């Protein structure tokens, strides 16, 4: 589903290279966890996958569902099924959440040649998904993420993911800011989306999330490269030994 080869990416503005020859393959149906120290490039990878223009890919390739992902712009990637749950969801004053959700769903449907959702059908879907994620529907009457608590923002990201039904989900530290109960609710939401034709990349620092969303593979990112890959036991090993020992061993 996703094949990243020798990916080099730098910050457009000042030319600092952040990803330095990253290789990663994620198959359809797979849940891949990416772990790594602060500043190792995890969020950068998620942004590069979603097409953020602040980063420039200087070398390497990203193939998604058999196509060159780098040829697509941000909204085309979203319509093609790439979804990033942001580490820091953005507050957008003045844009009502419901208006935003409806536009997002309909523009993706349109891009895929499907008809627009009727307003009642749309509201029904949002209500259903919000309920599963224990999100108060009234919260969605507010502008996008504005005044949401840290945990509410993360839930709202997963709500969007459930509504948009992407093919490749990238969750960037979705567990940070969630209380223990919320973590379970959100993990349930993600597990619900697990399917043979969908891939999930979970970026996290903590085993706790991986207890709920059990990964098929675990990858350690350090200084812009995947330095070690393994199965779910690698996460436990990391938890036990810390990054530095594992990264040193790998070097």
């Amino acid at each position, binding site marked *: 589903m996703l094949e990243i080869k020798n990916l080099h990416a730098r910050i457009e503005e000042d030319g600092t290279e952040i990803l330095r020859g990253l290789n990663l393959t994620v198959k359809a149906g797979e849940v891949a966890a990416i772990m790594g120290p602060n500043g190792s490039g995890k969020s950068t990878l998620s942004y590069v996958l*979603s*097409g*953020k*223009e602040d980063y420039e890919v200087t070398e390497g390739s990203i193939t998604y569902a058999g196509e060159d992902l780098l040829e697509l*712009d*941000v*909204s085309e*990637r*979203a*319509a093609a099924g790439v*979804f*990033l749950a*942001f580490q820091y*969801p*953005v507050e*957008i*004053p*003045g*844009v009502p959440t419901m*208006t*935003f959700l409806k*536009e*997002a*769903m309909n*523009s*993706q449907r349109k*891009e895929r040649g499907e008809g627009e959702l009727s307003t009642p059908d749309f509201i029904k879907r949002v209500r259903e998904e919000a309920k599963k994620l224990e999100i108060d529907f009234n919260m969605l009457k507010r*502008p*996008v993420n504005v005044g949401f608590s840290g945990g509410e923002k993360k839930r709202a990201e997963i709500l*969007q993911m459930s509504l*948009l039904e992407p093919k490749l989900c990238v969750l960037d530290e979705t567990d940070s800011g969630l209380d223990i109960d919320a973590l379970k609710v959100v993990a349930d939401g993600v597990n619900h989306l697990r399917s043979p034709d969908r891939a999930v990349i979970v970026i996290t620092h903590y085993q706790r999330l991986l207890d709920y969303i059990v990964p098929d593979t675990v990858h350690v990112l350090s200084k812009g490269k995947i330095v070690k890959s393994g199965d779910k036991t690698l996460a436990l090993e990391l938890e036990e030994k810390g990054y530095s020992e594992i990264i040193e061993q790998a070097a």
Partner: protein
Amino acid sequence: MDSALNRVYTEGEKALFAAFDSANLSGDARDEAIAALKQNGLPTRKVEAFHYTDLRSLLRGDFTIAHVPSHEDARKAGAAFPRLVDGAAVLHFRDGHFLDFGEAMPAGISVSTRLPDAATTNDVANALGQLNMAFATGGACITVDANAKVAQTIGIAHTPVATQSLAASRVAIEVGSKTECTFVERGVGPDGNTYLHAPATDLNIAEGASVTYTMVIEEGADARRLGRLSVWLAKDAKLKLNVIAFGGKLVRQELNFVVQGEGVELEIAGINLIGEENHIDITSRIDHQVPDTTSTELFRNVVTQRGRGVFQGQIKVAQPAQHTDARMACNTLLLSDDCDFSAKPELEIFADDVQCAHGATVADIEDSHLFYLRARGLKEDAARRLLVKAFVGEVLDEMEDEALAETLSGRIDAWMERHV
């Protein structure tokens, strides 16, 4: 001081004077007004009040006095622009002339269709007053009876019929004490017509009355508008004014408020959408003369392409006007490299116990907002429009008449389709 004798007139000035001479407009007040215009010439940027709108260079010719159109032509010209408010009772002005289409006015409202009295000064900064004084043909005096609660909206609709008409009119509205009433004034015209629209409205609000007034400026792409709204507010009067401007090519809209009764609440909110090569100037003066009054003024401006916008907001608080609470904000989104907006807040405060605040901001669309929306599948255009709409939405959300707000929201969407 330049004298009229050695002044070289511009095409615009020549067109004005020729129009006056050809029109058989008589009366001392008109003669004095045109004499002042001849004496001063149109104001240039050297005149402080016109610093950002050099009327002398911006007002080109291509207009002349138009005769009263036939009812048939007048109707046709109006039919091109569907009404903003269903069920309003509308007074129709065409090329500056009043045309009676027999629309019944609701109980409590009486209309006499004569040209109301007005006063002007010879001051160069008062060019719009002189222009209206010299040229106004059609007029109406609207009286709202004391204590009337008028549910029906009163419309004042200005549309050109002839091409290149110099359309000047004057409306005086006397709102009786303790009344409630709603007005929608709209200037609208076709593109490709270089008409000059110079409307003046005097609104006198008596004690305890509450007025909602919406001014919609939808002049054609090639039109010029030099308009003035003057308002006097008596004790405990309330005015909620919305100004929504989409164009013309050159728009100068002056808004003057004299707060002369205690307990006045004045609320002004506007949206200026400035695209193409349009120049839109809102110049407002709020004069707090007595204690215990409030005014708020908020403008949200969206400027793109080669548009130029101006907001001059003057607030005066006289020495006796203690406990004045005056707040003014002017926020602008600049969407292109070639557009421009000048904001000039001006506070003149002579009372010591007052709260006055003003703020002007200029920004571009936030990249992080744009990215977030696009990352959810919105096309760049759609994302930009959603953000622009959010920016101006606050003004619409606060409007009294939700149906009108909805209609204007649709107009804004249509504008964004073409400009954002």
